């Protein structure tokens, strides 16, 4: 038993040593980089409270960053599974390591980014769903209203029972916008629609998503749902799959093609990669700061994903017409 313990401890020390080496190496290259800025390899880092393999928000943001970085020649790094208290510390260590761009994928990082950004004027920060514009913070804002309206229109067109549902993770501003517009759009295409909504209070409690969907289906006769709660939505889909003629609308990726349950009828796709690319261009050209990059149907930041075969042709056409109206801003006047 003692031998085992000693082996375990040796491994731990080795591991610590290795990570230590890794960190110092990156620091070294970064100082070298800043000396000759011509052949500089830019570096981008992402922090996240959920893991990047959550099959939802975290994964979508990470993939967007990697896609954008590949095209623009950035090196990528990430830290995930962070607690709220560690946000600022993690951002600060990336800033110390000489990262050029730090990507914070969510409104919840606003305060941490603001706090760190003022100490590192040379580091650039991209805040997704943010509302801050300073010299070195740029907000990326996919239009939550358009996302909500697109999902609501599709749900309204597809519902046979006139009852649709919405699951939120936390009561974030973007989630509230999505819900309000989801409801308004659904009522615009079908005035008899009733919307049931609930919050899971979590982005990872898949079991709760299943329970919420179940209770909506059984007590409110809901047949189309839309969710803004990452992994919780997967649980909801499982409950929907166990009922006939119950559907889900996916986001933020194009989820229909990977969907084995067959409940996802369409997706509202948010293309974060495009917005991050714009950020990277600004970093390279030295024009970063003091703006918000919007993502909407107009510039391809938000788009309608593929449909599953459960959506009839006439609804598809009608829906795409509505998407055009949302793009033109003539669908719902708010």
């Amino acid at each position, binding site marked *: *038993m003692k031998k085992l*313990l000693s082996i375990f401890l040796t491994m731990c020390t080795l591991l610590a040593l290795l990570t230590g080496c890794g960190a110092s190496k990156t620091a070294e290259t970064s100082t070298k980089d800043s000396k000759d800025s011509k052949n500089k390899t830019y570096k981008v880092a992402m922090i996240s409270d*959920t*893991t*990047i*393999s*959550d*099959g*939802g928000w975290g*994964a*979508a943001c*990470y*993939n967007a960053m990697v896609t954008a970085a590949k095209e623009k020649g950035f090196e990528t790094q990430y830290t995930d*599974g962070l607690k709220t208290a560690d946000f600022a510390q993690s951002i600060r260590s990336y800033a110390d390591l000489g990262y050029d761009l730090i990507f914070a994928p969510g409104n919840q990082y606003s305060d941490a980014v603001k706090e760190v950004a003022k100490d590192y004027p040379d580091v650039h920060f991209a805040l997704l769903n943010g509302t801050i514009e300073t010299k070195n913070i740029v907000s990326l804002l996919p239009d939550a209203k358009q996302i909500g309206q697109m999902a609501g229109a599709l749900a309204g067109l597809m519902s046979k029972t006139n009852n649709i*549902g919405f699951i*939120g993770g936390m*009561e974030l501003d973007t989630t509230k916008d999505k819900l309000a517009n989801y409801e308004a759009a659904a009522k615009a295409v079908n005035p008899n629609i009733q*919307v*049931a*909504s*609930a*919050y899971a*209070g*979590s*982005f*990872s*409690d*898949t*079991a*709760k998503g*299943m*329970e*919420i969907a*179940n*209770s*909506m289906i*059984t*007590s*409110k006769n809901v047949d189309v749902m839309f969710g803004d709660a990452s*992994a919780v939505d*997967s*649980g909801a889909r*499982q409950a929907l799959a166990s009922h006939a003629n119950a559907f889900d609308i*996916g986001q933020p*990726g*194009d*989820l229909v093609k*990977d*969907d*084995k*349950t067959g409940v996802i009828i369409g997706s509202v796709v948010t293309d974060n990669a495009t917005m991050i690319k714009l950020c990277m261009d600004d970093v390279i050209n030295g024009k970063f700061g003091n703006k918000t990059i919007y993502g909407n149907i107009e510039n391809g930041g938000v788009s309608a994903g593929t449909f599953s075969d459960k959506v009839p042709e006439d609804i598809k056409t009608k829906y795409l017409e509505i998407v055009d109206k949302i793009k033109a801003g003539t669908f719902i006047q708010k």
Partner: protein
Amino acid sequence: MGDILNAGFIQELLLSTVRMATPILIVSLAELYSERAGLVNIGLDGIMALGALVGFLVGYTTGNPYMGILAGAVAGVFVNMIYAFCVINLCAEQIVYGMAINIFAPAVASFIYKIYFGVNSSLIQGPLMEALPIPLLSSIPILGSVLFNHTPIVYFTYLMVPVTAIFLNRTKAGLNFKAVGEFPKAAESLGIHVIRQKYIACIICGALAGIGGAYLTTCYINTYSDGVVSGRGFIALSAVIFGRWMPGGVLIAALLFGFADALQLRMQVASSDTPYQLLAMIPYLCTLFALAFFGIKKAGPKANGKPYLREER
């Protein structure tokens, strides 16, 4: 409000209660065994997380959810052995090592998942255990589908309650086991192998908590995501105190929590205008009140949480 208070609604509510209470109940029983032998294990959340991952992984690769449950139990025992060695042999502080497990095990689970599955835009789906309705009993109206139309793990969990009660109160082995948690020195002087009993407690605790985790990813939902445990281990911990270290009490505590949670979700759906934070508090408020009313008198094992130094006088 009237239209939702019908038989169908109540049946669904009760069904949901049973489903939601099961993982809490099995993990509370795990903790009950541990604390009865004098070991406070607050690492339940971590053990569950690892059980959930290993259960899912084995279920996914073999296509058999029963293998997943078994593997979850084994993984739970393994990780709990770290805790066992440190607190039993090295007499280390139990809370500290429980917390260490809570940090260590979910991180390992997350790491293995990322290595094995990579980063996907949607969650990987594994097999789900089929419900096994009990013949005759499951055709009783309302109660039948609420109580007798579940996966075998649910039956196993509820069966564990009377089994544990009989074991702890009616068998010699059980009384010996309890003695270790009450007064280990006296137990040792009467020829009970205290260290062995404590290890047995840790094995049972690890296995049950591992099953509780694996239940989430093989019986409840068919995916694994980090944070799937969502603090159920800590709720189980409070269920043991609320249940006053008795299997029956623990059952009531788990069911009360499950019921309150199922009810609050339905209330959210029924009235979207009510702020959800208010309703989401209900299960925790229930626990708080119940603890305040029933938990006044200390009822736990006397030597609970104390390290056992064999050589000490």
